């Protein structure tokens, strides 16, 4: 039986290790994020939605696949909230489900070019597939 949204929220908090209650809603994460323009749910809102347990919507979010994992939000957050960890946790909650990999092996060949370093492939798989 799939997990309820409440259980999911609990899982997200546990595997991210983030205490969302520490957030004081200053928005510095969103002021910092280099991928802000590509996101539908912005970092500050992401934190707030995890806090409220609205995980289903987050699992549908484009933001999961546009976060650059650059840790700028983590670095600059005045409250040590670490939004990037939350995004990764939700992303994992998606790809850990059977058949939900974001990136599939047969997509790769068309994406390659000659100079692309393999760490790009490895990291993409690590981030987007299980």
């Amino acid at each position, binding site marked *: 039986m799939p997990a309820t949204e409440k259980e999911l929220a609990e899982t997200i908090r546990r595997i991210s290790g983030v205490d969302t209650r520490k957030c*004081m809603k200053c*928005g510095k994460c*969103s*002021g910092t994020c280099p991928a802000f323009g590509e996101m539908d749910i912005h970092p*500050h*809102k992401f934190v707030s939605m995890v806090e409220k347990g609205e995980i289903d919507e987050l699992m549908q979010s484009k933001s999961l696949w546009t976060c650059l994992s650059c840790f700028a939000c983590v670095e600059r957050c*005045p409250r*040590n909230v670490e939004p990037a960890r939350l995004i990764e946790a939700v992303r994992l909650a998606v790809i850990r489900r059977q058949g939900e990999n974001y990136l599939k092996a047969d997509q790769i060949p068309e994406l390659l070019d000659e100079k692309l370093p393999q760490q790009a492939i490895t990291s993409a798989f690590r981030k987007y597939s299980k």
Partner: protein
Amino acid sequence: MSSLHKIGVFVCWCGSNIAATVDVAAVAEAMRAEPNVVYATDYQYMCSEGGQSRIREAIKEYGLTGVVICSCSPRMHEATFRKAAQSAGLNPYMVEIANIREHCSWIHKDRMDATAKAIVLARTALAKLNLNQPLTAGESNVVKRALVIGGGIAGIQSALDIAEAGYEVDIVEKTPTIGGRMAQLDKTFPTLDCAACILTPKMVDAAQNEKITLYTYSEMESVSGFVGNFTAKIRKKARHVNEDLCTGCGLCQEKCPSRKAKNEFNMGLNTRTAIYIPFAQAIPNVPVIDTEQCIHFKTGKCGLCQMNCSAKAIDFEQQDEIIERQYGAIVVATGFRPISLERFDEFGYSQNPDVVTSLEFERIMNAAGPTKGQLVRPSDGKHPHCIVFVQCVGSRDTSGCGKPYCSKICCMYTAKHAMLVREKYPDVEVHVFYIDVRTPGKNFDEFYRRAVEQYDVDYIKGMVGKVSSHGDKLQVQGSDLIADKQIIIDADMVVLAAAIEPDPEVRKIATMLTASIDTNNFLTEAHPKLRPVESPTAGVFLSGVCQGPKDIPETVAQASAAAAKVIGLLAKDKLKRNPCVAHSDEMLCNGCSACEKVCPYGAISYMDKEFRVPGPKRTEIRRIAVVNEAVCQGCGACTVTCPSGAMDLKGFSTKQIMAEVDAICR
């Protein structure tokens, strides 16, 4: 156990606070059966006049030698009951309290359990009381003079109020002039009156008041002693200018060829000479030589100031002077500084001169400041067209880079800055990034709203993520949370509302005074609500931001409150001392010095004393410890370090505590 004791036990109901959970009659009943107890009763409110008179009457009627009160915490009413006992002729230290409210009735629900525990607590108090000795509090004189550490508005106000009451006050200020941070401010919120206009008259008052002595360019060296009788050593640093001879003409400053030192008063935005008066209204109006900059001190040459001084006031040979003085009370008013922004480089403070702190902006806006009040960019002197203010830089920050607390004053001064800019320069676009706007205070929110509604200041709920230079602009990237957008503003200047922190000197001073300090280096008050201007260390009072972030009116109010406390203390001729002090049994003392090493007050000294001994020699000289009862504060560190048990603490003697242990474990 002395069988001569006749002890009365009084069990308080505290209305239903105790009686609802503890069977007070059963407690009295149980105590009546205890040895030495000749009288036991219960009553609704022991602390009321009715309750107290019952105690007094029982003492007289039964000839009580001691009293156990089962009631609320001794921290609440111990003093009350001691006074009551004393008025009936009983030694006040023959009163013991069993705390059956906070430690019993309020935390236990089961009536049986609570009653049983209350009986144990009462027996414990009785067991201790059986071993109590009548103690007499000694008296000590009060030196009728106060010391104020810090010469900002807090220190000045405290000193003026104390002097007004007729007592001598000394102000010790580490910089060359009094005035403090307030002297650096341009205008003050919410009235926008000029800081100098209201501060400088007070500085003059302080200087002219014959009861006030100013020690500027001076630092605290050490403090010893106790309430009513502190001894302080003050280091009056060499100014190299004779204060008595100097006329303050300023010619030396004009002639000084060394002009590269950062001007501290202007927050380093411009430079000053090596011999300098910090600002025009400085008090005393006497320059000081910065020996690290002075060519004479560096090379032995120059001496232009000396040559040009017709008053012959320049004295290169002047030495630091140590002044030792007695004080009855000490006011700490050490103030604050903005935090260093080195851990906030995302705002580019260290990389771009046009990113300034609010205090620097204050100087830029000030007519006596480095730009003569012209709003121009520090980098190129150009007039800015767009200014971004960022609030909460380092405040409310638990990441370890800043401070966890709200600095309290930033919302208001930022509104002030925004408003002043818009008023003087309507062409300048002003944006303010805020997390929350906090404006509790008379006319404060109205003030902030005026900035928005009347002066069109753009308040953006959100935070800046990064400031980067882009051509001759500053690209400010931040969030607008209401619009859920990331915005980029091309600004000409960025003003950071840096968090404030207590002056770092305060740690040293707190240690000297044995005053406690919190994790943020703010001095701790004796009670956060009921004793907000007293330090837990008797005789030490707190004034201004050293106790917590405050604006000017709050600082002045607190300064006067501290002064009132000082006056109350100095008005007394004698102070009762705590009689619960250490005492060494000379017949047991080995003279080993262990107790002296752990005494935080230096209350223990040693003497050689002749003792009779058995045998042909009859006497021998032994080294023994002697406690200065006026200095001892009664912590008991010495009692445990003493292997022979010679050292004991009155009121908390080893035997008394053992008796308590035994009573609990009975």
